[in-house]
C-alpha cells in the first residue's frame, strides 16, 4: 500500500469506512506532511489538534456503525477566504488578522456534514487579488515543483498543499483564474464551477459577479467528489442556482464530442512548450473519437480590459465594509475622529495591490467616468457572453491552455502589475461568461514545471467537462505529477 498522503480522497474514504485505517491515522499522516513542508507556505493556519479531534469523532461515529458521509475521514484544506467559526479567517490581510467569524461558510457546513476533517486555512493573495500568492500579508508561498517559483494565485496555498500531499483535497476560489492558474502551475486538477453552482455564502467577496468556490485535487474524480459535496442550491445566496447537481463521477464515452479550439487562445505570448503539450493532449482525445473544430472568440482580446474594470469596481464596494467599526483591525490612536480612524485603519490594513484595485474600481465607478469604464465594460461583457453561447451551439467544449507559460519565478512580476494581470489572459473569459472551466495537468516543461490544459463547457455543463477530463486522465496516466521528494 502506498503512503496515506499519496492516496486519493476516494480511496481514503473507502479505507476509513472499511476500518482498514482510522481517520486519525489519515489526519496524522497529512499533519506530519504539512509540518515537513512548512516552508512551502501553503498554510496560514494549520490546526493539528482540532483536526485530530475531528478525526477521532469520525472514528467514533464509524465505531457506532454510523456513516459520517461521502467524505468520511478525508482531510480538506480551505482557502483562508472561507469563513470558519472555529478558525481565523484572514483573507491574507492585516485588516482581518484577528478575525474569527461567528459563522461557517455554506461550503464549510457542507464539508462538516460530509464527514471531512478540516486541516486548516491556506495561503492566498490578499483578498484573492493576485496571481502568485505574493500579495499575502503573512507568508510567501512556494511551488513544490520548484521552490524558487510561484505556486500561482490567488489560491496558491490550496494548490501547493494538494500538489505536495499535505491534503488530498482543497477548496479555492476563482475570480479570474485563481483556482485554475495555480492548479496548472502546481500540476493538479482545479475547477471553476458554473456561476451559481456553489453557494458563495461565507466566501469573503472579491468580485461578486465573478467569484466561485471550486475544488482542487490530484485527480479528476477527486475533484468531482469534492464538488458534489459542496454544490447545490443555498437560499442564503440569491445567485445560487436552483437546478439539481448532476452526478459528476459517472464515466462515459467522449465519442463524437466536439472540441472547439478558439484561435485567440493560441496567439502571441504562448510558450512553445505549452502549445506543444496542449496539441499533444488534443491529438490524444481526437484519437479517442473526439472531434477538433477550429472556432473563434474575437472579443477575447478585450477580456483582460473588461475584467480589470469589472472586478476592481465590485471590489471597491465589497471592501468598503472594512472600516474598523465592527470587527478586524482598528487603528485610531485613541482620540481620532471617525474619518481619521477609518482612513488610518484602511491605510494600515490593506496592502499595495488591494489599494491599487480599490482605486481602479472607485475611479471606474465615479460620476463622469462610469459610462466610459464600468458601463462600457458591462456591455462588452454581455457581448462576450452572447459570443461564447453562440460558439457552444457548434461545439460541446472548448480546449485551450490554462496559462501562456508554466510557473514563473518568485518576484519576477511583482513590480510589474500589468505583466501579472496578463497571466490571467486565458482564464478570465470563463468568469466573465459564467461558464465552468477546469484545468488539468498535461505534461511538464523541460525544466520539470507542470503545464495546464483548460477545458470549458457551457454553463452547467460540468458533467461533460468531467467526462472529457476523465478521458484525458485515463489516456495519459503520467498526468498526475508528484513534486520531487525532499530529503527527510
Amino acid at each position: 500500500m502506498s503512503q496515506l498522503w499519496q492516496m486519493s480522497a476516494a480511496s481514503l474514504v473507502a479505507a476509513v469506512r472499511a476500518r482498514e485505517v482510522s481517520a486519525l491515522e489519515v489526519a496524522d499522516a497529512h499533519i506530519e506532511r504539512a509540518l515537513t513542508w512548512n516552508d512551502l507556505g501553503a498554510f496560514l493556519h494549520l490546526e493539528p489538534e482540532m483536526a485530530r479531534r475531528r478525526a477521532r469523532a469520525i472514528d467514533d461515529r464509524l465505531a457506532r456503525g454510523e456513516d459520517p458521509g461521502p467524505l468520511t475521514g478525508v482531510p480538506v484544506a480551505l482557502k483562508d477566504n472561507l469563513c470558519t467559526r472555529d478558525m481565523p479567517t484572514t483573507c491574507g490581510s492585516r485588516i482581518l488578522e484577528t478575525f474569527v467569524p461567528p459563522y461557517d461558510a455554506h461550503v464549510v457546513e457542507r464539508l462538516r456534514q460530509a464527514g471531512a476533517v478540516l486541516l486548516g486555512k491556506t495561503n492566498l493573495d490578499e483578498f484573492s487579488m493576485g496571481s502568485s500568492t505574493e500579495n499575502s500579508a503573512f507568508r510567501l508561498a512556494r511551488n513544490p515543483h520548484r521552490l524558487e517559483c510561484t505556486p500561482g494565485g490567488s489560491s496558491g496555498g490550496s494548490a501547493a498543499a494538494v500538489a505536495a500531499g499535505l491534503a488530498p483535497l482543497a477548496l479555492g476560489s476563482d475570480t479570474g483564474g485563481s483556482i485554475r492558474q495555480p492548479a496548472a502551475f502546481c500540476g493538479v486538477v482545479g475547477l471553476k464551477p458554473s456561476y451559481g453552482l456553489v453557494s458563495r455564502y461565507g466566501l469573503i467577496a472579491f468580485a461578486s459577479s465573478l467569484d466561485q468556490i471550486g475544488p482542487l485535487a490530484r485527480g479528476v474524480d477527486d475533484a468531482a467528489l469534492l464538488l458534489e459535496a459542496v454544490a447545490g442550491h443555498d437560499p442564503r445566496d440569491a445567485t445560487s442556482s436552483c437546478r439539481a447537481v448532476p452526478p459528476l463521477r459517472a464515466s462515459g464515452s467522449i465519442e463524437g464530442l466536439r472540441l472547439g479550439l478558439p484561435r485567440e487562445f493560441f496567439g502571441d505570448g504562448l510558450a512553445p512548450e505549452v502549445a506543444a503539450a496542449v496539441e499533444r493532449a488534443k491529438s490524444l482525445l481526437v484519437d479517442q473519437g473526439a472531434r477538433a473544430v477550429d472556432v473563434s472568440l474575437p472579443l477575447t482580446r478585450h477580456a483582460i480590459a473588461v475584467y480589470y474594470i469589472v472586478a476592481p469596481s465590485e471590489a471597491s464596494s465589497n471592501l468598503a465594509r472594512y472600516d474598523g467599526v465592527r470587527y478586524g483591525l482598528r487603528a485610531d490612536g485613541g482620540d481620532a475622529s471617525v474619518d481619521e480612524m477609518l482612513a488610518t485603519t484602511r491605510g494600515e490594513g490593506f496592502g499595495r495591490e488591494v489599494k491599487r484595485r480599490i482605486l481602479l474600481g472607485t475611479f471606474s465607478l465615479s460620476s463622469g467616468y462610469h459610462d466610459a469604464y464600468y458601463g462600457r465594460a458591462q456591455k462588452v461583457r454581455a457581448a462576450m457572453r452572447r459570443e461564447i453561447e453562440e460558439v457552444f451551439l457548434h461545439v460541446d467544449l472548448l480546449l485551450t491552455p490554462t496559462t501562456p507559460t508554466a510557473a514563473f519565478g518568485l518576484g519576477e512580476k511583482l513590480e510589474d502589475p500589468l505583466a501579472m494581470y496578463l497571466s490571467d489572459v486565458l482564464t478570465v473569459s470563463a468568469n466573465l461568461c459564467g461558464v465552468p472551466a477546469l484545468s488539468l495537468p498535461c505534461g511538464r516543461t523541460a525544466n520539470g514545471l507542470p503545464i495546464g490544459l483548460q477545458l470549458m463547457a457551457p454553463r452547467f455543463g460540468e458533467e461533460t467537462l468531467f467526462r472529457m477530463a476523465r478521458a484525458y486522465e485515463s489516456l495519459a496516466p503520467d498526468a498526475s505529477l508528484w513534486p520531487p521528494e525532499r530529503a527527510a
Partner: protein
Amino acid sequence: MKVTVLVGMEVHLQLRTQSKMFSRCPARFGAPPNTLVDPVVLGLPGALPVPNRDAITMALSLAMALGGTLAEVTRFDRKNYFYPDLPKGYQISQYDRPLATRGAVEIVTREGIKTVRLRRLHIEEDTGKSLHDDRRGLSRVDFNRAGTPLVEIVSEPDIASPEEARAYLNALRAVVSYLDISDANMQEGNLRCEPNVNLHIENGGEPVKTPIVEIKNLNSVRNVERALLCEIERQLAEYREKGPAVAHEPRSTRGYDDDKDATFLMRRKEEEHDYRYFPDPDIPPLTLTEEWRTEAASRVPELPAKKRRRFMEEHGLGAYDAATLCRHRSTADYFEKVVAAGCAPKPAANWILTDLGRHANDKKVLVAELGLAPAHVAGLIGLVEQGRVARRPAAQQVLPRMLETGAKPEAIVAELGLARIDDEDVIREAARKAVAAHPRAVADYRAGKKKAFDALMGFVMRDTQGKADSDLVRSVVEEILEES
C-alpha cells in the same frame, strides 16, 4: 410681486415586515441595542443579501394603490458611501430601475381637492443609528434598525404650500394605513420626510427661481409645516437681499432647529457624495410576474380617495369631512357601521369627528378603538335627533358614561334623568319663575335688547338642567313676555 411655492417630498417609510429587507433577522422597534442583528445586517465578511419577498409585495401594493407604473424587471443597486452606521460601506437601494414610476396622491385641503404627481417609488434598506456621548467623547452604533425595509416615495414639486404638504403627508399616511403595511409614525421614525422647496418669483421680467433646498431633521407633520413656513420666509428674505442673483446660488441641504424655529445650512450641493451607484451583483434582477402583481393587488382594499368620493356621493358629506373620516380605515369603517345601525350619515360624521374624536385624541387611540359599540353610538345620536335628549347633555354626560360603563344610551339617559322635558306646564312654570326673578332683563328686553331674551332663556335651561326642549322654551318665554 408674485411668489409661487414649489415643494417636492421625499418620504421614507419603514415597512412592517417580520424580518429585515435582505436577511431573516427579525425587524421591530424598541429592542435592546444590537440584539436584532445577524451576519448580513452587520455586513460581516462573506454574508450575502437575499431580498425579502414580503417586503417587495407590500411595496408593490403601495405602488399600485398610488397608481404607479410598475417595472417589468426591477433591480437593486449599491449606493456607496462611508458612515459608521452603514455596515457594508454601501446601502442597497434602487437607482435606474425602481419598482415603480409615476402615480399620484390626491390631497384635500380646506380649499379643495388637488393631485400631487409622483416621480418614483423604490425599495431600500435602513441604516443603523449613531449615538453620541459628547461628555465622554464616545460614539456608539446601534444596528437594530440597519436593514429594515424602507420604501422611498418621491413626489414632483406639485405641493404649493405648507398646508398642502401636511395634507400630502396625511393622504399618504391614509393610504399606508389602509394597506396596513407600516406604522407610519413620524415620532418613532418609521415615516421620515425630507421636503425640498424653492420659490418662483415674478417681479417684472423673467421669473427668478431660488435654489432648491432640501430640509432634514423633521420628526413630526407639524414640524414639516413649520420648517417649510420659515424656509419660505428665509428664501424670500434672501431674494430681497440678493435680487435675481440668488438663482445662481448652489442647491443645498438645511436642517431644521425645532427650538429656534429656523433652518440652518448643513451642506451645499458641491459637498455631496459621489455615490458611485452600480447594480448589486449579489442580487439578480427581479421579474415582477403576473402572479406576483395579482398577489399584491389582492392586498389593496378600497382606498381613501375612492372611499371619500363614495362618502360624498352616497352620504352627502362635504369633501373635508369625508377626507378626515377616511384618513384611517378603521374610522371610516366605524362611520359606516354607525350609519348601518340606522343613524343618518351627517350627524354620524359630525359626532365621530367632534365628540368621539376628542375622546379618542385624549386617549391617543382611534375612534374605533374607544370600545363604543357602533349601535350604541347610533342609538345616542338617534335620541338626540328624535329630540328625546338634548345635544349638550348627550355629549357631556351620556357619552362619557357610555365610555365608562359600556351601557346603552337609553339606560344612561334614564339613570341620570336626562330625558328631555317637553311638558309645557313644567317649562311654563320655570319660565314664569325666571321672568319674575329677573325684572331687569325683562326691562332690557322691552327696551329692544335681544341679548336679554337669550339670558332669560338661559335661566330657564339652567333651571331644567339643560333638559328642556329649547324650541319649546323659546316659544313659552316669548308668550309670557307678550302676556305680561
